């Protein structure tokens, strides 16, 4: 079976390598992808239309906003599915392991103090990544993952309960829902004001700015929604995976 798989992989790889001969050169301005008028429109007009210097963020959250909305929903659904499968009551074996691990965990002072120092910095950096996605690489997904990572760090360096005291399981699931709600709510507000779904330029009356800046602000709102969902789902997945869904003990 393994050799069969290896043969299939080698044949496919060779075919792909052969096909890559016909690719245009890297960054070639005359390649079909760059010549197509949609991509030319994005490259030339993004800053005029949305006042966002980072083209990737503008395409992700504005031009392809519908796509990103359902990416967020996919992450939300994945998290809910993992919680639904793993979540269960605490059993005796886990309690025994907890008792034996408590001694191990308390003795490591240096690790705990360093993490106490680092977690706020990481969270601040995550917020910076979310809010600065217009100008530099970053945005809701990355910032959300970093924020969730800071909570995971808290759970690893102390105990899972320490992190759950800050963000309880119920709160995490609620925040994940709130994220999707923010995203689709912004789209709905656009719809109610008479524009298209997720057409942020219609928000300019509400925000008291010109339509171009309104699009930029709309992107920021959407990124915040994405970040809520991703951060809380990351933490919920970790909490369930590491403790077998018992929310006690863990890594």
């Amino acid at each position, binding site marked *: 079976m393994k050799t069969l798989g290896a043969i299939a992989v080698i044949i496919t790889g060779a075919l792909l390598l052969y096909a890559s001969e016909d690719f245009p050169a890297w960054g070639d301005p005359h390649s079909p992808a760059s010549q197509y008028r949609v991509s030319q429109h994005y490259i030339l007009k993004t800053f005029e239309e949305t006042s966002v210097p980072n083209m990737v963020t503008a395409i992700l959250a504005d031009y392809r906003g519908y796509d990103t909305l359902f990416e967020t929903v996919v992450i939300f659904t994945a998290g809910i599915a993992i919680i639904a499968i793993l979540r269960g009551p605490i059993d005796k074996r886990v309690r025994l392991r907890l008792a034996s691990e408590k001694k*191990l965990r308390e003795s*490591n002072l*240096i*690790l705990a103090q*360093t993490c106490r*120092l*680092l977690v706020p*910095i990481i969270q601040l950096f995550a917020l910076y990544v979310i809010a600065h996605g217009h100008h530099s690489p970053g945005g809701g997904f990355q910032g959300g993952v970093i924020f969730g990572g800071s909570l995971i760090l808290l759970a690893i360096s102390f105990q899972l309960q320490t992190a759950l005291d800050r963000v309880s399981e119920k709160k995490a699931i609620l925040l994940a829902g709130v994220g999707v709600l923010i995203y689709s709510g912004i789209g709905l507000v656009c719809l109610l004001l008479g524009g298209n779904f997720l057409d942020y330029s219609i928000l300019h009356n509400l925000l008291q700015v010109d339509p171009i800046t309104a699009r930029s602000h709309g992107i920021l709102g959407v990124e915040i929604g994405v970040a809520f969902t991703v951060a809380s789902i990351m933490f919920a997945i970790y909490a369930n995976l590491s403790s077998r869904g018992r929310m006690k003990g863990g890594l």
Partner: protein
Amino acid sequence: MILNIACLALLTIGVVIFFGAVIGVLRFPDFYSRMHAAGISDTMSTISLLTAFALFQLHDLSWPNLLVVGKIFFIVAFISLTGPTSTHALMHAGYQRRNRPPVRKQEPDEDMT
């Protein structure tokens, strides 16, 4: 000119120390001395390499470049905090998982369960 020489010197120091770390990890006999080699030299060489990058940014003084230098020094502060701590955590975990004296003849890091 002086800036270039300083940059090159720092880069050379960083790369040489990194090389030492690699040799230490490959050649030292047991887990603890390997972690010793990796931990110390890794932090030191990363700091010197990043300082070299920061110095290279100072070729033309402007506010954006100074901002980059500031960010690089943030990374230096971060590395100097996390590097020793992660080494300590690994040592601690290794020591607690198997309570045996650190010096051994054979390959040690096979059975950590």
